[in-house]
């Protein structure tokens, strides 16, 4: 049963205003095609979550799609602080988002707990710091501090997270949604599997037979997936291992643009609202910067050794 559809259809059908979204990636495999479509469709009041975020989440915040953000970290890396995020928190532009802060240990484990059907999970970090003192929309359920029933020692418990929808970008998937990924994983596998529905964006759709040649690469089974979208260069300006490099100059472009509200709007008008889909986006990129610059992003050829699962 094929779940292949356009990103436009996937976002229209499966992302609702007010939903709780996990969006995978971090420089590696951010699902930018889907993120742009969420902005194009002016989705709002979203709660968004991921450990370590960058321009992708900054853009969603600047575009006014986000109400709440369960976060650990947001920055433009090399280019410093996240501008839209700062404007939201410091000046309420376009509005002040609510944030609930965890860490790159506790948050991935909360997603893991969600994926594994656990109500909560013990973590060893956060204790003794101001991260314990601040509580936002999760209130007293941000964490609980108990004495271990085993040995009486103090233990922090953090709750499982189960997003409504996960959106991830991977190298390849089949039409049922069996999603295969390699390289830096972040919290992608657990976040996707914690969600009630998964939208899989991929560089290439492959046959079920190709998936079956190397089933240990699958991180999400088809039965959890509601939509499969084929979006080559779908993670640009982030990268996808084996497909293309980070586009540092585009990252600089975004940082420069997002320095001001006007610049950010102009960026959206050009790169999000000014195009209908990823194909037009890439076409615009090539028109503007030239095919040579586009071609420079392509990954070099350096293949692994095949393995066998036969008996």
């Amino acid at each position: 049963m094929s779940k292949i559809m356009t990103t436009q259809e996937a976002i229209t059908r499966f992302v609702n205003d007010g939903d709780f979204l996990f969006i995978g990636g971090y420089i590696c495999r951010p699902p930018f095609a889907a993120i742009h479509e969420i902005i194009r469709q002016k989705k709002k009041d979203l709660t968004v979550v991921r450990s370590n975020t960058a321009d992708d989440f900054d853009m969603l915040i600047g575009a006014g799609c986000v109400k709440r953000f369960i976060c650990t970290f947001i920055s433009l890396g090399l280019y410093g602080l996240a501008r839209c995020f700062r404007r939201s928190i410091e000046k309420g532009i376009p509005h002040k988002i609510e944030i609930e802060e965890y860490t790159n240990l506790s948050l991935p484990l909360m997603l893991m707990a969600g994926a594994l059907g656990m109500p909560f999970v013990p973590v060893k970090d956060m204790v003794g710091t101001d991260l314990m003192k601040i509580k936002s929309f999760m209130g007293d359920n941000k964490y609980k501090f108990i004495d271990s029933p085993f040995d009486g020692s103090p233990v922090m418990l953090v709750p499982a997270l189960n997003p409504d929808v996960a959106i991830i970008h991977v190298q390849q998937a089949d039409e049922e949604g069996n999603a295969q990924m390699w390289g830096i994983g972040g919290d992608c596998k657990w976040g996707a599997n914690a969600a009630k529905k998964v939208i899989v964006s991929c560089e290439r759709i492959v046959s079920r037979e190709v998936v079956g040649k190397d089933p240990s690469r699958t991180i999400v089974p088809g039965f959890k997936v509601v939509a499969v979208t084929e979006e080559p260069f779908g993670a640009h300006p982030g990268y996808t291992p084996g497909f293309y490099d980070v586009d540092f100059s585009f990252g600089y472009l975004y940082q420069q643009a997002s320095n001001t509200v006007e610049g950010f709007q102009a960026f959206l008008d050009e790169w999000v609202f000014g195009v209908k889909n990823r194909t037009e986006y890439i076409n615009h990129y090539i028109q503007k910067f030239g095919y040579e610059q586009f071609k420079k992003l392509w990954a070099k050829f350096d293949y692994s050794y095949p393995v066998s699962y036969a008996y």
Partner: protein
Amino acid sequence: MSEHPNDYIKPELMACCGAREIQDGDIVIVGTGFPTMAANIARYTHAPNAKLMQESGVYDARPLRPALSVGDPCLNPGAAMIGGLVDVMGMFLQGGWIDVGFLAGSQVDKYGNINTTVIGDYNAPKSRLPGSGGANPIGSLAKKVLIISLHDTRHMAEKVDFITTPGYIDGPGSREKWGLPANTGPSVIITNKAVLRFDKTTKVAYLESYHPDTSVDEVVKLTPWKLEVSDDVHETEPPRAEELKALREILDPFRMIKIYEKRGYV
């Protein structure tokens, strides 16, 4: 006796100070910039069996260019293992295997607490910073934490505006009270002026060595808490020839480290 060329810049000295904290065989969790350079200097000099990892899921990467983030593409090809955050932050860090972590922050205080969350009031911030990321768990759980900081009264504080990452928190007994693992915590603060260590009893950072172009008095004056001075305070050993060679010839041929001079590390 090692040779000490005198054409080094301050960030190079700081990277070498970091390298010297790493022992052979150490498992080191690094971010980008200083930590990677320091850990790699160690690997190419006295600690060939030290192993590096990044929180994003990478163990023993073989990057062909300096990584610009923990998710940098150059960390993928050639690594010994790639998983995700749960593998590195959970299995290796919370599992108790990390010997050394590096941290930096917008503010660090006398107990080695670090702020990467907010300058000013949390609810009405003067400046909103990126947040913890991996810093809090590294500061909570690595056996030895090396802190990198600019040495001035803006970046160092008697008390940080917000404790993102625990040093010794409120002082002696605090880490124990909160149940943080025994024998963890900050070990050293490496600044552009000096090397500070933590007093075993008071848990307050004191002056161990001052860098060649400065003095005990200057460092004391630049430090916003009453800086105790070690009985055997001395000048920091400048970069050794072999350390600089590793850094300049192998790790950073384009001398990207100079960017730290622009950021005030002079």
